[in-house]
């Protein structure tokens, strides 16, 4: 049964991108275990406001695990100590009375800190803009059932397309690599006949942009797959490598 617990929080506070950050410690009493982790932070912020202190800034929006906005590094895990969840789906029943919980922002060269626990993930948008799409304009497209797609391919494409662009893969990687993110998009589109046409070009353009933006290399540690809230598999990275090599051979 869920009950109320008392906890200690060690939270990274940083005023701005150029400022020096540090951990600060807070105590929080009577936290209902049926609350989500972010609701616990709401409680803390309520307490801070009532003390006239500045609340902790953190990104969050849909609070149902799909927008990809929340991005907390909790006790050494992106999104915290539970599987297949984003931070907003982490519940306080995963913690015990008296626990000390450490909360940090995503840490990676590709994601500079904006304030406290907020980071700038615009690099992901830039990678998609480099080629993460099928080049069709609105209008003039054929009937949706014109090209049958084998169910297995459609399902595999959907598995890859489930990526929410949160950046946990980058935060989990000791090299700060964005390979899983890029691979998910390349796979999603390469598995569909509509996306096959530009598959090689897409892989090359997206990888080039990723390298340019300061993300590290992939050394196959598999940490990204373990921490991915949407279970994106590293087999997608193998597919990306194949598409990338094919493109390079053509050059």
């Amino acid at each position, binding site marked *: 049964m869920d009950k109320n617990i008392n906890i200690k929080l060690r939270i990274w506070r940083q005023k701005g991108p150029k400022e020096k950050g540090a951990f600060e410690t807070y105590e929080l009493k009577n936290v209902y275990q049926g609350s989500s982790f972010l609701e616990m932070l709401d409680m803390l912020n309520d307490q801070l*406001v009532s003390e006239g202190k500045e609340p902790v800034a953190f990104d969050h929006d849909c609070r149902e695990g799909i*927008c990809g906005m929340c991005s907390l590094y909790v006790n050494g895990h992106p999104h915290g100590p539970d599987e297949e969840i984003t931070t907003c789906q982490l519940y306080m029943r995963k913690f015990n009375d008296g626990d000390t919980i450490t909360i940090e922002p995503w840490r990676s060269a590709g994601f500079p800190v904006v304030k406290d626990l907020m980071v700038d993930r*615009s690099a992901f*948008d830039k990678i998609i803009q480099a080629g993460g799409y099928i080049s069709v304009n*609105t*209008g003039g497209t054929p009937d*949706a*059932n014109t090209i049958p797609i084998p169910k297995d391919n459609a399902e595999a494409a959907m598995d890859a397309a489930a990526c929410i662009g949160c950046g946990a893969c980058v935060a989990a990687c000791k090299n700060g690599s964005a390979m899983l993110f890029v691979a998910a998009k390349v796979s*999603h589109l390469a598995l569909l006949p509509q996306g096959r046409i530009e598959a090689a070009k897409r892989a090359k353009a997206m990888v080039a942009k990723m390298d340019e933006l300061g993300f590290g290399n992939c050394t196959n540690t598999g940490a990204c797959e373990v921490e991915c809230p949407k279970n994106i598999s590293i087999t997608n990275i193998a597919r990306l490598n194949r598409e990338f090599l094919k493109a390079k051979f053509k050059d």
Partner: protein
Amino acid sequence: MTQINSKIPEGPLAEKWTNYKDHQKLVNPANKRHLDIIVVGTGLAGASAAASLGELGFNVLNFCIQDSPRRAHSIAAQGGINAAKNYQNDGDSVYRLFYDTIKGGDYRAREANVYRLAEISNDIIDLSVAQGVPFAREYGGLLDNRSFGGAQVSRTFYARGQTGQQLLVGAYSALSRAIHKGQVKMYTRREMLDLIVIDGRARGIIVRNLVTGKIERYAAHAVVVATGGYGNTYFLSTNAMSSNGSAAWQCYKKGAYFANPCMTQIHPTCIPVQGEFQSKLTLMSESLRNDGRIWVPKKKEDAEAIRAGKLKPTDIKEEDRDYYLERRYPAYGNLVPRDVASRAAKERCDAGYGVGPTGYAVYLDFSDAIKRLGKSVIEEKYGNLFQMYKKIMNEDPYETPMMIYPAIHYTMGGIWVDYELMTSIPGLFAIGEANFSDHGANRLGASALMQGLADGYFILPYTMQNYLADQIQVPRFDTNRPEFDEAEKGIEERISKLMHINGKHSVDYFHKKLGHIMWEYVGMSRSAEGLKFALKEIKALKKEFWTDVRIPGTEETVNPELEKALRLADFFEIGELIALDALHREESCGGHFRSEYQTPDGEALRNDEEFSFVSCWEYQGEDKEPILHKEPLNYQFVVPQQRNYKS
């Protein structure tokens, strides 16, 4: 009273849109580059509009509140998108989709708009597939469908329980391509705080940069608002935390009519409220009603025993369960529209048959479907929803029924628009949930995605040209004009006032109180007495907020408390208008249920003679009662009836 001109084209229903397109004005390609368009919002409507307008050659400036356009709340739509493809050979057609939508909306939507929506629905599916949206497929490789409430055909296309996500990623990828090609310029982490009107036309916006805190000015030839609904007025809703009504509200204050504010949708299947720090309510997709059966115990003593934790739902024998939707509505059963299902749940819980610790929950049970189809089929269809439920409630829905209760989900009301999706301010357009146009008094499931994308991909790119055609000679506007100065000054004063109150309570403290008033008196069941009380209470609370809120930090940096305070200041006023409109509409229709107006068996009792109109509210100034204009709904093609889902 001003005549409301909805600009509905003449001619037979099925030919109106074609006729419009055949005769509208267009802008030639060379002139398009000289015309700037601001699009606020990057959800399904905003992203699809920005991408499509950019592709056409207009110079588009696109704004969003999140750190990336991919995170707009359309992403959370789960179940699906409707289209009249009739791939299932089950009798669907454009007319039937039109008719179901009009009927589902309880005859409070415009016929011409809804027919156009149904016509366009098929194009959306074609485009999405071409963009790479991985819709569910049959083993033969063709597209699969499922059923949603208010329909007797299977016309809903879906991508597992993440259809909104996949469609938004489709629109986002089109937008990303347009950004790459230089057709759209993207501005993230910006919040629109005012609309600029020059000589009676919308010509720009003022935004706050949420990272630097700076106030920024942008000018354009036309402005499109695609900022979603105002459901968060109720504090607890299925909306995202940043979803707000402020952009729409600024448009209203600048003269755009606000239509049918009282038409709010309460979704029947959400995870019930659990504690006082609950920040939002999570939806469980309507698609679950394809296979889940809704029930409460037949005997009050069983319900009491369950609430006390002495009995489990699985202990209740089949003959002691009341499948109340199947009992009351045999023809549609568990697939009645949302407003009907929500009220039926409230009725049972109010009568003392509710379950869960608070007694405000009903069961959604999959045991029959699991027996019939096997666990693996259910897992394939709804796996992610079951997982989500388990994480939140710590109970396994494969083993025990889900607990659900209605919650605020969507707002059918919004900025008034004509057939061209233009508001009452020339040059200001509103699309998606931000406008009021297509869902009448109740939206059917899987129709929001359809409408958002229809507006953005296929309607606005045409109708905007009809407006812009005579703007090609108008030079770009200077943002140093006095209209911008004045608006910026107003915003700075408002922010400074909020920052200096230095009271005792946080923003959420007031928002929760507002939410409580709204849910109790302006929620699922409303009465004249309750609404009058709510109006008084909201006014008092608003005053308290403006004298006792506390916002730490400064305005020159990231300050989430300030962002929330600015939004809440508008929610108070929106709440007042919802209540005022609800008080004025002395009938029950769709999501608007007035307890004084019901049939003997508790169904909504419409009054077509007096209330077959769109309420269009015109702002008159602070603390002044707005003026009500009425746009009559002249049904020419279907005959409004009392909705019947029983036989």
